[in-house]
């Protein structure tokens, strides 16, 4: 009987140990994304609209206050700005391309951002298929378009890209490769296309989308400033708190981003609060 009890106790320990090991080994593996369906407070259309407004403000600010004002003070901007021998900053379309690349660089936020047109400078940026159809509609009603790209499994939005500054019109009209030279202020020169793999997002995911865009803008602006430091033939602009309207100078990325935040804060907050 004693031996039997001893054996039973031993068996119980082994069983307990096996249960503990089994339980530890079979703990559920945490998911990469913790957002659940009930947390998804914003439709992807709402999220696209918020981040698109951020983009409108950032690009207009860059076009007017950096490119437009900077050109008058001697700063140069070029489509080949990334080439070593070109001493210039990014044109607005390439500034956007830089942001789009930065958003995807870390791969944390699966947000896609693209720029196209029916009269692009580079023919490879011309809309085709569904985008061309929707852009034709957009030219008439000036409204954003939303659709699901079934082949790509991506929720997609297109927002009109208006010629909001004189520099947009003059640069495109005078570009040697332009396919249209009669642009006027207020024209829809193209459209930004945004993609995201889900139909709705949580507050955290929306925050991630907005911050991915803002960080992309700051990092692209920083890349421009880094490039100016390699200038050999042109003067290196002073980087600080002042804007190009006051001289041959550039604001720091933080100052630029603060201004974007200041200009977008009301609309972004309204979007988040759904007002």
């Amino acid at each position, binding site marked *: 009987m004693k031996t039997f009890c001893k054996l039973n106790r031993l068996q119980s320990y082994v069983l307990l140990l096996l249960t503990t090991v089994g339980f530890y080994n079979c*703990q559920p593996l945490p998911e990469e*994304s913790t957002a659940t369906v009930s947390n998804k407070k914003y439709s992807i259309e709402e999220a696209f609209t918020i981040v698109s407004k951020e983009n409108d403000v950032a690009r207009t600010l860059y076009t007017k206050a950096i490119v437009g004002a900077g050109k008058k003070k001697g700063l140069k901007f070029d489509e080949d700005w990334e080439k070593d021998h070109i001493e210039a900053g990014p044109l607005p379309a390439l500034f956007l391309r830089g942001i789009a*690349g930065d958003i995807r660089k870390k791969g944390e936020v699966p947000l896609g951002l693209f720029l196209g047109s029916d009269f692009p400078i580079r023919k490879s940026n011309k809309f085709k298929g569904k985008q061309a159809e929707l852009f034709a509609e957009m030219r008439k009603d000036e409204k954003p378009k939303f659709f699901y790209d079934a082949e790509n499994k991506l929720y997609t939005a297109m927002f009109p890209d208006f010629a909001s500054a004189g520099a947009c019109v003059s640069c495109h009209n005078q570009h040697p490769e332009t396919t249209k030279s009669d642009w006027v202020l207020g024209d829809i020169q193209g459209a930004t296309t945004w993609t995201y793999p889900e139909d709705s997002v949580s507050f955290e995911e929306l925050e991630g989308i907005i911050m991915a865009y803002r960080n992309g803008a700051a990092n692209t602006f920083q890349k421009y400033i880094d490039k100016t430091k390699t200038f050999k033939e042109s003067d290196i602009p002073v980087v600080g708190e002042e804007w190009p309207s006051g001289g041959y100078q550039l604001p720091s990325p933080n100052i630029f981003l603060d201004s974007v935040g200041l200009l977008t804060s009301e609309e972004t907050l309204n979007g988040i609060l759904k007002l």
Partner: protein
Amino acid sequence: MFKISRKRKRQFIGMCTGVFISAITYVTLSLPQNDDYLSKGPLNTGHENLKCETCHTPAKGNVFQQAQANVMHAVGLRRTEADFGAQNVDNKKCLDCHDRANDRHPLHRFEEPRFAQARKDLGVTECESCHQEHNGVRITQTNIGYCQSCHEDTEMKNDPLEVSHKELIGQKRWNTCLQCHDFHGNHIFHAAESLKDTIPVQEIKAYFAGGNSPYAEEKKYYATTEEELENKN
């Protein structure tokens, strides 16, 4: 006293031998010097000295957790699948070492709806569509005229070439694109302005097969090394 039959004895010895051989095989094949026996084929150019785990990183969790997660996913109790054994070798893994600010054709750009045909023709959103690993070459894409998928309308008013781009496209001479331009744009060189100065197609094919770069030896960015990657992680 139980009497064990000779048949059972033989079965027991057979099982023990099987377990022993399996254990020896498992341990032997796990040794780094025997990686070649597990590999699907020779590693591509530039990857020859990489360790298996550099790309085939062990998946999160243990096998029980991985199996459980996939069962839960199959019955709808989990949103995402879990990697089993090793993490999936996807674009992210390639970009950990090869992501560059100056990439002229970054993968994400082809996610735009208008590139549907290019995705269908070339699979341009996946690195491995052109750089399928374990083939012992640099590029597995054999059609060097692939620029056709997106650049059929190219026309330049200030064309630097003696024969215009439009004319070359009209003649469907798609092989000539790579004779002046490298796809990812990382080599430091100037494109030729005359067709007679362009890179011969044979040299480009040799480069695809693993030969030296005909564009330039010098690059703007170099891939992250295995050591740098380990330090980063």
